[in-house]
């Protein structure tokens, strides 16, 4: 098969790559673009370790073909922090010891970000169901749920402060 040339945006940067028609977005991120934050835990969409946002929509990058992302916007765990400032989710995961081995963590962070973008104040049950596509074998999920809950609070407070500033300014 001949290579397919693709132009796309990853974490805000324009990138171009040539991939084989069978290669997935995960293969492309890891093997062509050097972004190994997304992991392959299964390759069949069952573990969520390869979660990324595709035009803002949470997807398993192992179930997207590299050739499909022409002109799209991709966001990975590598793009979560704002410069040297960690995203509140990243901070809370550390504070709550929400990771042990850490291999599922990038996927959880991306999935949790997608959740908090559409629901700023999720209940425990909403958090659990929203993260059901991400497998963790170390933690029993307990500290992950707590960390997401805490980060949701941080983001709401940030939002409020931003609104206040806007109103004042």
């Amino acid at each position, binding site marked *: 098969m001949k290579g397919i040339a693709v132009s796309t945006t990853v974490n805000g940067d324009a990138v171009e790559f040539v991939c084989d028609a069978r290669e997935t977005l995960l293969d492309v991120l890891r093997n062509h673009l050097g972004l190994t934050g997304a992991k392959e835990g299964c390759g069949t969409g069952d573990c969520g370790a390869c979660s990324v946002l595709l035009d803002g929509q*949470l997807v398993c990058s192992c179930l997207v073909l590299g050739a499909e992302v022409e002109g799209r916007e991709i966001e990975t765990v590598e793009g979560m922090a704002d410069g040297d400032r960690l995203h509140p989710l990243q901070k809370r995961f550390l504070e709550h010891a929400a990771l042990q081995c850490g291999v599922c963590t990038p996927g959880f962070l991306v999935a949790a970000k997608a959740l908090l973008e559409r629901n700023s104040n999720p209940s425990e049950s909403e958090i659990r169901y929203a993260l059901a596509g991400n497998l963790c074998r170390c933690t029993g999920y307990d500290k992950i749920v707590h960390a997401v809950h805490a980060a949701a609070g941080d983001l709401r407070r940030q939002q409020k402060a931003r609104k206040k500033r806007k109103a004042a300014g």
Partner: protein
Amino acid sequence: MAGEKGKAYLLAGGTDLLVRMRGDFIDPDLIVDIKRIPGIQEIRKTASGFSIGAGVPCAMLGRDKALASAWPGVVEAAQLIGSDQIQGRCTMVGNLCNASPAADSVPALVAAKAKAVVVGPGGRRRVPVEDVVTGPGRTSLKKGDIVVAIELQKRPPKSGDAYLRFTPRTEMDIAVCSAGVSLTLGAGNVVKQARVALGAVAPTVVLVPKAARALVGTRLEDDALMKLAAACEAACSPIADKRGTVEFRTEVAGVMARRAAVMAYDRARGKR
């Protein structure tokens, strides 16, 4: 595509196709991404109801308030497929054409009397959803046929549908057995029309008219529900596999049907 000599596959959400490629179950010579066909990623309100494009990811169904309130069972069924990650990609048409007996959206669509819009070398035609799948992994579609949309009718007043499946896990699972029920009530909340379909208990999703008849003319009294369950059990011809035994699938299909019927009935009465 019809002209391709090798094995050609359509790519919608890719949540089944890529898994099958990965497992080496298929080795395509051509993959056609349909998502860039204009209109294929749209949910349209039509004069007769709704038309859901073949490229619409299931996550989008829930965001369409009109659709979700007219066909809550269909939308719930579609939204049970996989995780949020899968929801962002998977489609009802893909779920249908993958032709798994355990497909979540299909029993709900069959109960809803949905139609598949097929475009092919022979032109455009409407096929009842229950006639699309002919066996595990097999469909009645011909080479070059593409299902471009699913059509759902407008709802008469006092109607409701529901879909329930049994899975060992709360999420990320395949139905061991499932049931879709659609009801329309008449005066005094007596069931006027009913359709009952079961999943994962036969080579294809089965429509069970006898189960529907057990409900018509009743207010879902215990006796009617027992008859419904019995009719459902009688309609089962499942296999035993890694997901469940014959006995289990048969018995629990009846349980799912009973529970789904009660949910559909409550919805039809305006009780949520």
